């Protein structure tokens, strides 16, 4: 073992967990008659650094560890956790979770054995093991570049976050698997001020990788992006309001797809028939141009995983192909319901939470059109370059997204920057209105975190330039604009 932080439940840790111990705990979990049980051991360490007002102002580190025990009986889940790995604490968690099946007969779990997992984020040196001075220097470079680029930049802050998350999962089906998931995220935020007008700009990225990330995307490059955005926004005018064509930039715009389509394809909502995609496999749910996949295997991407949080092996799931709905994203429980096998979408925020179907890297694949032709085809519309975030009502697909950088398109040209733009619509409607797709598919740099029922997990998104015919743009300028 190399490196400084290691799980107590690892082989050479203070409380090693082997197959025997896992079997013992699983037997306790099923003592009351559950159908299924799993153990989720987790050890996570995260660090963060904030560079602000030209000094490294704050440095933080956090260690969190525990065991989550889940027992299922039919559709009911019993869940409990403990924060230390003493046998008594673990046994108590297993006993508590077992109560969901109270009154039943003990069930014997299958003996567990270790599964081989792929290696999708080979990292030579984990960021947490690198001297803090190196990270300080990266933040300093970003700060210096942003300040030097324009006198109107009045504030800069840069942040760096790093973590590792070590998991050990064992379930009563006999599977046991381990993973160690590194994650890195850089962010830069600037404020530009000109004659009392203040605007902000930001840039960020990262993924499941080490500091080699900064060889590809330098701190100076991020500084330029953030500064450009803030300066452009100084000239922004009020956005028009009403229905018009919208062109989405490649990469980051995948977040719209993630929210507006992806969530509705998570199998739990479909099991419960609360999604607008329930019972529609085989139907046309998008324009024939659209193929949507969720792919956990992209090397180093923020959303990638080797094993899911139920010990399943995820790969590439085709959700929509040529506009036709192919299937949902499954976890173990929904897979039982749909009489299929889990495709490795069972994820959870931590050992304190039970897993549910979640996305990994969700992508709309590229098409045939040249991006410039797509823009040229628009008489009057909005070009959405950067998204601040969005929200969807799963039950009907209605969504709202806000842009942090958007432009007017007039007579086939990208013109004035716009402020306060929201895009509002309906997922299935928007997907049917996809009329052009660029050949410039791109995966977003790693910045996105997805929230569902109070649980956050890192995700990736990707897409080409997309033209959506007629979407509601929420601005303040009624009429001519």
């Amino acid at each position: 073992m190399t490196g400084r932080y290691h799980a107590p439940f690892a082989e050479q840790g203070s409380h090693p967990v082997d197959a025997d111990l896992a079997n013992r705990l699983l037997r306790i979990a099923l003592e009351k008659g559950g159908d299924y049980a799993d153990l989720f051991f987790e050890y996570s360490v995260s660090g963060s650094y904030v560079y602000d007002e030209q000094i490294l102002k704050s440095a933080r580190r956090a260690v969190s560890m525990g065991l989550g025990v889940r027992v299922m009986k039919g559709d009911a889940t019993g869940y409990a956790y403990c924060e230390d790995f003493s046998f008594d604490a673990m046994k108590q968690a297993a006993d508590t979770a077992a109560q969901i099946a109270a009154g039943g007969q003990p069930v014997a779990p299958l003996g567990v054995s270790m599964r081989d997992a792929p290696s999708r984020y080979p990292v030579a040196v984990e960021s947490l093991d690198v001297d803090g001075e190196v990270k300080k220097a990266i933040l300093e470079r970003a700060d210096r570049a942003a300040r030097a680029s324009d006198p109107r930049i009045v504030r800069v802050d840069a942040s760096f976050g790093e973590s590792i998350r070590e998991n050990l999962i064992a379930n009563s089906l006999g599977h046991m698997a381990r993973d160690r998931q590194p994650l890195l995220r850089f962010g830069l935020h600037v404020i530009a001020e000109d004659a009392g007008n203040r605007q902000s700009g930001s840039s960020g990225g990262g993924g499941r990788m080490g500091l080699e990330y900064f060889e590809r995307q330098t701190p100076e490059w991020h500084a330029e992006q953030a500064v450009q955005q803030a300066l452009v926004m100084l000239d922004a005018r009020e956005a028009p309001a009403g229905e018009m064509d919208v062109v989405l930039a490649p990469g980051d715009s995948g977040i719209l797809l993630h929210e507006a389509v992806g969530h509705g394809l998570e199998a739990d909502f479909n099991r419960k028939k609360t999604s607008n995609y329930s019972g529609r496999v085989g139907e046309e749910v998008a324009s024939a141009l659209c193929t949507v996949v969720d792919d956990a295997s992209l090397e180093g991407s923020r959303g990638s995983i080797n094993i899911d949080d139920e010990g399943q092996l995820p790969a590439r799931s085709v959700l929509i192909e040529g506009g036709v709905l192919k299937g949902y994203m499954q976890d173990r429980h929904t897979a039982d319901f749909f009489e299929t096998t889990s495709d490795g979408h069972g994820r959870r925020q931590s050992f304190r939470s039970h897993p549910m179907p979640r996305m990994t890297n969700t992508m709309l694949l590229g098409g045939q059109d040249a991006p410039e032709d797509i823009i040229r085809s628009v008489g009057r519309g909005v070009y959405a370059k950067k998204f601040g975030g969005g929200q969807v009502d799963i039950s009907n697909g209605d969504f709202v997204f806000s842009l942090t950088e958007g432009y007017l398109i007039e007579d086939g040209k990208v013109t004035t920057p716009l402020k306060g733009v929201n895009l509002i619509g309906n997922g299935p409607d928007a997907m049917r209105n996809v009329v052009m797709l660029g050949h410039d598919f791109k995966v977003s740099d790693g910045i996105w975190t997805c929230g569902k029922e109070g649980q956050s997990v890192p995700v990736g998104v990707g897409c080409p330039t997309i033209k959506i015919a007629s979407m509601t743009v929420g601005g303040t300028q009624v009429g001519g604009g």
Partner: protein
Amino acid sequence: MSEVEAKALVDLGRSVVERAIAGGADVAEAGVHSGSHLSVKARVGEPELVEEAGSRALGLRVMVGQRVASTYTSDLSDAGRQTLIEDALELARLSEPDEFAGPPDPSVLSSQSEWADLDTFDEGVSRISAEEALATALRGERAAFDFDPRITNSEGASFTRARGVSVLVTSGGFAGSDHGTYASVVINPIADDEGGKKRSGYHWSSSRHYADLEDSQAVGAEAARRTIAQLGATKLPTQELPVVFDKDAARSILGLFAGCILGGGIWRKSSYLVDRVGTRVASDLVDIVDDPLLPRAPGSRAFDGEGLISRHNVVVEAGVLQTYLMDTYSARKLGLSSTGSAARSPAGGVSSSTSNLILKANTQSRDQLIAETKHGLYVTGMMGFGFNAVTGDFSRGASGFLIQDGELSHPVSEVTISLNLDQLLQRIDAVADDLDQRTAIASPTFRVSSMTLAGS
């Protein structure tokens, strides 16, 4: 909450502070949290989830000179505490001196004799069993299904109870503990709408004391009423019109304002309210207070995250901004004094925060307010994150009802409403009397004289 448990946590915090000081820290502050919860969910008449656990954690902030670092651990073993302290000291040496960093002056720290009893703890909450919790949730969901046959499905009904104790021990001489309980019930029914569309709605109740929790059947019926009322919702044409925010929507507007009056955002210039104390920021109908001393309220606390005594702060009086809400650090950055508004995160960081931020009620009823609105939009729900704190630009998705001739008429969805927050608050021309204390940020219904609606 047992005195014994609180004392054990104070002792734990004190030992960490002492060891950090012995290791070379000039200032050390330890927060210790201990809590437990039960959370259950039922769906379509069947139990779906029973989750029960206890949790403990330690957060540490140290200063070496004016270099600051903080660490957190859920590993309370000796080795875990050792790593917590060593990491904090190592990180403090890496960070750079910040001339404004430092603990509050010991003379402003509060002590036990000054702390108000805020009645935030109810032993009864902890006694609710998983069976009772499930029965409560199931009754609530049943009431939603029984309310109207058009309720055909459910995202579930949940009941949660929690209790917790937090202690803070600082090398400046402060030691205190704060405890509380919380119970909530949420019901989330689904109805089938025209054209195969589904409509999801919800309603909830929460309280510090179990006796104050609304009956789950009443919550379920109200959730169903709200869901059914949205059936047949359509867009409206793009236009300018008066907008009435119901108390839930109004609270989320007040939440945006809350984020713009914190000292941390002001010195960073990331708020549109920089340099605005003493100026008009809302119409003269608007009074906003931050009051951590309300009995049984969700955001109440006897002392703040740095050990200063909690105090009632008037933030906006008759539309004029009176003060920002500051912790010691942001107050020093702004050349002012702390307003006792520090919040300490479990991870050890300290920032300025609201406690119970309240837009005060007026005398008019909600129905009167609607009745005197000839044409407008009544907003009951908002979606998305369209707010820029630096500029105040606001634009979010909205759903609710059209107001015609003083009455709520057909339901509306898939529209956005936009207006700069500065303008929005200054255009408030009516405030109702329907304030409640379910949330730490709370507002009655209010009306904005004119906003831009983007629709079809």
